[in-house]
Structures are given as C-alpha cells and as structure tokens.
C-alpha cells in the first residue's frame, strides 16, 4: 500500500517538474515582467508531492512496513522510535529521496522568496534547478527506488547498524545535505545569471542568503559529524582526514570563499566571473563528494553500502554537469568592471579566496591521489594525516594574519596602515604568557599560536571599537573570533593530549605518569535491543588528588550481530577524560585506551561561534532589507 502511494507521489513530483520545465521554457520567449501564476501553482504541487513521498517513507519506517525492501533492509520492529525515524535517511535510497526533497524545497523557496529580481533570471534558475530535480528523480526511479516492494512480506527487518543508532548521526546527514544540496540553487542561479546577463549586484544579492544558509548547515553538519566520530569511533580523535570527511570539507572551502567574494560583488567592485565560477564549483564539489562516498572507490573508515552502478550514474551526471557549465560559462561570459586596489578590503578578500582554493586543492589531491595511483600503477596507498598537517599548518600563519588585518581596511582605497599598535603589544604579551605556561618548543606551532592570539585580540578590539561607533559588523567579528579560537584550541589540545594504551584484568591497577587507573568492577545488563558489558574504572589524578569514575561499555547487538565499544567520557569545559575498553575473543584481559584531551568542548564551541556568525549575518540582512 505505502509502496504504491510513495511511487504515486514520486511520479507526481516528476510530472510537476516536467511541467515546470515546459512552462519556464515557453515563458522564456514571452517578453513581459510577470511570472505566470501557473508556475507558482505547479511549484507548490511539486513541493507537496515530494514532501508527501518523503512522509510516506517515514511512515513506512515508523510502522515497520517490511513490504518495502528499503525498510526491511534497514530497520527492525524493536528499534527505538527515534532511530526508526532517522533510519529513513540512514541508507542510500532514503537519503537520495531526502536529496531530492531539498532540491525541490530550495527550488520553491527561491521562486517564492526572491523578490524584485529580473524575470528571465528567475525563470532560468527554476529551469536549471528542475533539470537537476528530474535527473535525480530518474536516478531514484531506475536505480535506487526506496519504495521497491518485497514479496512475500518478511516478519522482521534486518536492523540498522548500531553504530548509526546515535543522536548525532541521526541529525548529521540532514544537516550536511542542506549544505550540500542547498548549494544547487546558486549553481542554477549562476548558470541563469550568465544566460540572462543580469547585473552583478542583483545576482550577488539574490544568492547571498542561499550561500549563507548552505554554509551554516555545512559547518554545523561537519561539526556534528566530528563530535560523533570523537565519542563513537573510540579513538579520541575528531578529525582523521578521512576521504569521507574530506568530501564534506571540500565544498565548505568553496562556500567560504564564495561567502567572502560575494561581499565584493555586492558593491559592484568586480569578481563577477569569479563568483559564478565559485557558485558552479560548490555544487560540483558536493556532487564529487557524493560520488566518492557512494561509489565505493575510496578506502574509508566510514563504509557506505556502495554499488558501482550508482557511482557510474553520479560520475556521468558530474561530467555532463561540469562540461555544460563550462560551455555556458564561455559562451556567455560576463563583462567585468575591475577596480581593485592593493591595500583595500577587496584585495584581502581575494587573498582569502586564494587560500580557500589552495586548501581545496591540497585536500582534493590528497583524496584523489590514491585512486589515481591505483588506476595507473596498481600500487595501493593511503594518504595519512601528516600530509595534510604538514602542508596546511604553515599556510595558517598568513591566513590568520590576513584575517586579523584585512577587515579593517576600507573598500577601494589604497591607504597603508601601520601594523604597530596597542593590539599587537597586547597580543605579544598574551603570547609570551602562553609560551611560559606551555613551553612549547616547536617554532611553527608557536607562530601559529601567536597569530591566532593576535587574531582573537584584534577581533575583540574591533568589537569594542565598533560598539562605540554603534556600527557593528557582528557576524564577521563572531565568525573570525570563532576561527581564531578554533585554531588556538586545536593546537593547545594537540600539545597537551595524553594517550595511554595498556591491558588490564578485573581488579588490576595501572599507573601512568600522572594518573592511576583502577579496574573496579564488571557488570552485565540487558537493554532493549542489545546486551551491555559495563566496566567500572576509577581514575585518579596524582597531581591534584581528584578521582573520577568512568564506565566504558561493550555493547553486543543481535540485529544485525554487531559489537560496539562505547567510550566513557568525563567532560568539562577545560578537559575531557576519555576511556575505551575492548575485549578480544572473550579472554579476561581487557584492552584499555586512556586519554586526557584538554579543551575539547571549547573546540566545539569555537565551531559553533564560527557558524553563529553566519546566522547573525542572515538576520542582519533581513533587517537591512526592511529599512
């Protein structure tokens, strides 16, 4: 029943999308300034159909309707309701449906919310967006249908991988998808802008909110994924430079570049072609990421059920998309009016863009190199974190410095500023205090620490200054402050992290340099869908005589049979104590990983601050538009 209903809604979406394409195409020839109400109506129907199809799938998961192959393969009737719901997008077919829903949602939102804009630009954007929607609908129907039926209907489902049964991972995909797929709307708008020859300022204004929205969700999505990896994978790391993580970071770099260069375009200073290239590149990177993840050509710690035919589809789509974009770009390339000066805000923003593109290049090469080498020479390699750390770290220094000084320059001016001032003196003092406290010997790390402190101090000073003048660019200040703090805490965390690996039997005690870890007790419990083995550990600090109790778990799930190790984390603002235990082949020896990780919560908070800047900018714009 639900399967038929779902397919009906999908066909409905397909039909309305085709109608919108037909209507917009016809409308291109009509010279007036009115978009016919038919298009609005069809867009609403399209939104209704696509959201309904998603709700049908959701309902099938909630009701555990195993007549759907997708529900049978990914759910189980005694799974908690929350994970039944998140199971909807926890698999390839369901997430593709979510992908289409976001494409449709952004298509309608763009149509209804973009005001006072050129008609042909709006119509063309809608046309391109619906071409994307159609393509993915065809992919869904022919290759990855979430509504495929199963007969006879099985009594019980196979269950969702327990490692995915986690609140962070339940919300991680939708967040990241809004970021990834949200970038489609400015991809479509960029192509439309080229053809309709809309002026640069209106283009900048019409895409800015969408860039902000996708950037915000991408940032928060990456943050949530990172937090999940931190407590669930049990290694105590939060970023592994894993290909799947890189796939989410690459569009982020382009979005960040775009966010900055739009500011230049908005003021008619230039960069029109560049902003268009970035808009196209963002969605291209999102699709590339999806291809890399879903095709299974990468060796990753995150395994997605992969299937070569899906990879082939996404790859063909990617190639067609890139080549048609390049064709449209060169056929209709816009006229530029350039008036950059060297010591001006726009020059610094262009520098920001170079850094972002360089970072993108580094990550892209690191991610694709193993694939290329395997294809060409057959050698199996992987690129480890040292590559990224070695290359990216030195470039953080000029980036931090540019972020510190850039924002205080004026647009289109050429006034050189003296670098020596109170803020610099204060930063040097703060740095020296930090240096004597931590006694780090690595020169590069000290430089990075200094420049992050400089950025933090300068940004706080800017806040104070603009507060006096009542002219606050709060979003820039918050985001830059967040970035400065992020870099600072990442390095402090890196310097002070402690890790000890050892094996213990029940009742034994391990003494490390600063801590004593006692294995006190072992307990077994049966929870709804798994069995839990809980270890009780007493961790005491030799320095300040405090002690903490940590309870790591080994969970044995039976549907499907999986073992997970749950880390026990004692967390406060300044430091996390992290303990994981594992057990091999039911011996009485347990393997323990004990870590002390300072400032973890402050790292998360810094990223939140960074993304908060985006939100504030969004609201500031709304207010600005009203006045």
């Amino acid at each position, binding site marked *: 029943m639900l399967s038929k209903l779902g397919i009906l809604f999908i066909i409905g979406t397909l039909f309305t999308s085709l109608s919108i394409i037909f209507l917009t195409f016809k409308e291109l020839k009509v010279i007036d300034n009115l978009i016919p109400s038919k298009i609005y109506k069809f867009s609403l129907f399209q939104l209704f159909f696509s959201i309904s199809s998603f709700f049908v799938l959701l309902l099938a998961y909630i009701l555990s309707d195993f007549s759907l192959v997708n529900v049978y393969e990914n759910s189980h009737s005694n799974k908690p309701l929350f994970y039944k719901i998140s199971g909807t997008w926890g698999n390839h077919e369901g997430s593709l449906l979510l992908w289409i829903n976001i494409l449709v949602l952004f298509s309608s939102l763009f149509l209804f919310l973009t005001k006072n804009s050129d008609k042909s630009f709006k119509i063309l954007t809608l046309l391109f967006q619906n071409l994307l929607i159609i393509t993915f609908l065809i992919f869904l129907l022919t290759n990855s249908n979430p509504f495929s039926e199963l007969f006879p209907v099985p009594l019980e489902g196979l269950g969702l991988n327990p490692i995915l049964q986690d609140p962070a991972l339940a919300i991680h995909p939708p967040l990241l998808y809004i970021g990834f797929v949200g970038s489609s709307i400015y991809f479509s708008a960029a192509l439309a802008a080229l053809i309709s020859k809309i002026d640069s300022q209106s283009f900048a204004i019409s895409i800015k909110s969408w860039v902000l929205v996708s950037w915000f969700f991408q940032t928060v999505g990456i943050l949530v994924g990172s937090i999940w990896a931190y407590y669930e994978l049990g290694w105590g790391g939060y970023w592994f430079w894993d290909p799947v993580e890189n796939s989410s970071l690459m569009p982020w770099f382009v979005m960040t570049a775009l966010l900055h260069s739009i500011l230049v375009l908005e003021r008619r200073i230039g960069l029109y072609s560049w902003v268009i290239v970035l808009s196209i590149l963002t969605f291209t990177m999102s699709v590339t990421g999806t291809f890399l993840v879903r095709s299974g050509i990468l060796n990753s710690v995150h*395994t997605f059920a992969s299937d070569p035919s899906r990879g082939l589809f996404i790859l063909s789509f990617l190639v067609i998309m890139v080549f048609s974009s390049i064709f449209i770009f060169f056929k209709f390339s816009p006229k530029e009016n350039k008036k950059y000066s060297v010591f001006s805000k726009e020059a610094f923003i262009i520098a920001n863009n170079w850094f972002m593109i360089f970072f993108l290049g580094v990550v892209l090469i690191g991610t694709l190199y193993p694939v290329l080498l395997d294809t060409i020479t057959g050698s199996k390699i992987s690129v480890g974190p040292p590559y990224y750390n070695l290359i990216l770290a030195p470039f953080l220094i000029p980036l931090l410095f540019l972020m510190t000084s850039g924002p205080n320059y004026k647009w289109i001016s050429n006034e050189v500023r003296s670098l020596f001032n109170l803020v610099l003196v204060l930063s040097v003092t703060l740095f020296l205090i930090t240096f004597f406290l931590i006694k780090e010997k690595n020169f590069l790390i000290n430089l990075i620490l200094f420049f992050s402190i400089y950025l933090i101090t300068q940004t706080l000073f800017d806040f104070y200054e603009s507060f006096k003048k009542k002219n606050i660019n709060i979003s820039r200040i918050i985001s830059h402050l967040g970035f400065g703090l992020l870099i600072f805490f990442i390095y402090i965390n890196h310097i002070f992290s402690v890790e000890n690996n050892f*094996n213990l039997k029940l009742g034994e005690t391990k003494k490390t340099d600063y801590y004593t870890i006692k294995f006190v007790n072992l307990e077994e419990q049966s929870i709804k869908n798994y069995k839990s083995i809980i270890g009780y550990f007493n961790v005491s600090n030799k320095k300040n005589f405090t002690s903490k109790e940590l309870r790591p778990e080994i969970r044995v799930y039976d549907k499907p049979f999986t073992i997970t190790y749950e880390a026990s984390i004692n967390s406060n603002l300044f430091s996390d104590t992290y303990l994981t235990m594992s057990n091999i082949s039911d011996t009485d020896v347990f393997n323990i990983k004990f870590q002390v990780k300072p400032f973890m919560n402050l790292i998360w908070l810094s990223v939140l601050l960074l993304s908060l800047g985006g939100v504030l900018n969004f609201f500031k714009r709304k207010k600005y538009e009203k006045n």
Partner: protein
Amino acid sequence: MLFKKVKIRLSILLTLSAISVFLIFLVFKVLEDNVLYFYSPSEIKNTNDLNLNKKIRVGGMVKKGSIQSNETEIKFVVTDLNNEIIVSYSGTVPALFAEGKGVVAEGRLRDKKFFIAKRILAKHDENYMPPELRGNLNKDAK
C-alpha cells in the same frame, strides 16, 4: 604607458606562475613523503628494498587461534593464506577485530617477520573488506 601596463601584468603573471609551480612541487613532495603503502604478508616477503623506518599498512586475515594478549600488548598473526607476519599492538582494537576476519594494521616493520602496529583500522561492516585487500586476495586466489 601601455608598455608599463603590459610589463606590470607580465611580472604579476610570472610571479603567480612561479608561486603555483612552487606550491605544486611542495604539495607533491610532502605527499610523496607521507603516503602509506599497503602490503600483504607475501609482498613484504618478496620485496627487497623495504625501508624499515617508513610507516606502512599491512593487511590480511587474522589467523585462527593466533591472538595472544598480556599486560602491555596484543600479538596476532596476519596471513594472506600464502605467507604470514606477526603483528604486535597495544591499545584497543576496533569492534570487528576477530580471528578469521580481515584486518589492516598501520605501523612499522621491525623485520620481515615482525610488525609493530600503532593503529588497527576500524571497519564498520562485518562484510567489509578494504579495497586493497579485496584485490590482493582475489589475485592470490587465481
């Protein structure tokens, strides 16, 4: 005036290309130094110019009945059905680490028979096999 403009543009272009060439060189140099090569036990046996100081990955199956643990380390044998190597490791193992299952260990060789692992890679899926290993096992099966 025009000549001056051309000259400025040319110098900017030259500087930019010099910087790009330098960056590309840098990226590939660091990349070359930091890739981890993947070997099966047979490949380790048959390769003569192995650098013992370089971090590598070794993959295969955990031999049945080979896991031993004591206070500081876990020892097990990784086999590709033709050759085997002893791996020593201290720390927690990923959830799917078990005898008879696929494993990838990252670390350094002490000699051709003994590998000191710093990390055992986590695999989320019990049927999962690293692409590198899949290729090798197929090759050996032929």
